[in-house]
C-alpha cells in the first residue's frame, strides 16, 4: 500500500492447483459415470479447468499479450458446439434405443 507497488496476494500456484483439481474431478466423472449427459458434464468441468489456466497465464505472464484470452474465447465456442451436438446425439439415440447409458450405446463397436 502507498508508495510501494501493491502485489496480488494470490500466487499463480493456487490457480494452477485449483485447475488441476477441477480437471481431475472432471476426468473422474468422464471415466466413471454411466449416463452420457453426466459424462458431458465432466467434460465441461475439464474445459473450465483449461480456461482457468489460460486466463491465469494471461494474467501472470504478460497482460499485454492477449493470446490467453483469445484462446479462452475459442474454448467457449468449442464447448458450446460440443454440448449442442453431443446432446443432440444423445436425444437421437434415446429416441431410437430408449437409453443413454454409455455402456449400452455400442453401435460403433463393429
Amino acid at each position, binding site marked *: 500500500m502507498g508508495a510501494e507497488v501493491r502485489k496480488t496476494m494470490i500466487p499463480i500456484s493456487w490457480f494452477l492447483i485449483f485447475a488441476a483439481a477441477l480437471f481431475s474431478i472432471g476426468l473422474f466423472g468422464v471415466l466413471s459415470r454411466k449416463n452420457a449427459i453426466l459424462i458431458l458434464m465432466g467434460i465441461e468441468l475439464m474445459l473450465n479447468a483449461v480456461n482457468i489456466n489460460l486466463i491465469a497465464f494471461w494474467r501472470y505472464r504478460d497482460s499485454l499479450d492477449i493470446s490467453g484470452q483469445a484462446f479462452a474465447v475459442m474454448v467457449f465456442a468449442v464447448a458450446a458446439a460440443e454440448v449442442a451436438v453431443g446432446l443432440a446425439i444423445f*436425444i437421437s439415440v434415446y429416441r431410437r434405443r430408449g437409453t443413454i447409458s454409455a455402456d449400452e450405446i455400442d453401435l460403433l463397436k463393429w
Partner: protein
Amino acid sequence: MSFEQVVFILVAAGTLGAALLVVTTRNLIHAALWLIAALFGVAILFVFLNAGFFGVVQIVIYIGAIAILMIFAIMLTRQISSEKSARFNKNWLWAFFISIIFFAGIAYILSLWPEFGTTKPILSAEIDPVKQLGVALVSPQAYLLAFELASVLLLAALIGAVIIAWEQR
C-alpha cells in the same frame, strides 16, 4: 492471511465441492444444478484474475445457455434419477486412481516450475483487457482467422445438431 486469500479459498473449496457432487450424485437434475454452482464458482475466480469479461461470459454462456440445454436434454431423455441403476460404471475404481495419479502428477510437475509462486502487481486501471481482446480478435496479425472460423464452427454445430435432434413429423 489476507481478505482476498480467504475469499479465494472459500470460493475454490465451494467450487471443488460442487464439482465433486456433480460427478457423484445420482439425481441428474441435481447434478446439473451442482454443475451450475461449480461454473458460478469458476466465474468468480475469473473475476479474481481481473478477467471480469470472462466471468460474465461464463455466466451468460455456461449457466444461461449450456446448463439450460442440459436440463432440457435430461427432461427429454426422461432419466431424471438413476436410483435403479448403479451410480458408476464398473471401471469407477480405475477411474478414481487415474484421476488421483493425474492430479498428483500435475501438482508434482508444477512444483518443479521455478515461477510457481509468482505474484504480479495489480493490473493498472488504464488497461482495458476487453478492448485489447476486441482489437486482437479482428486484427489479421492476431486472431482474425480463429474468430471467423469459430463462427463457421458454430454454424456447422447449429445445423448439424438441429438435423440430428429433429424428428420428422
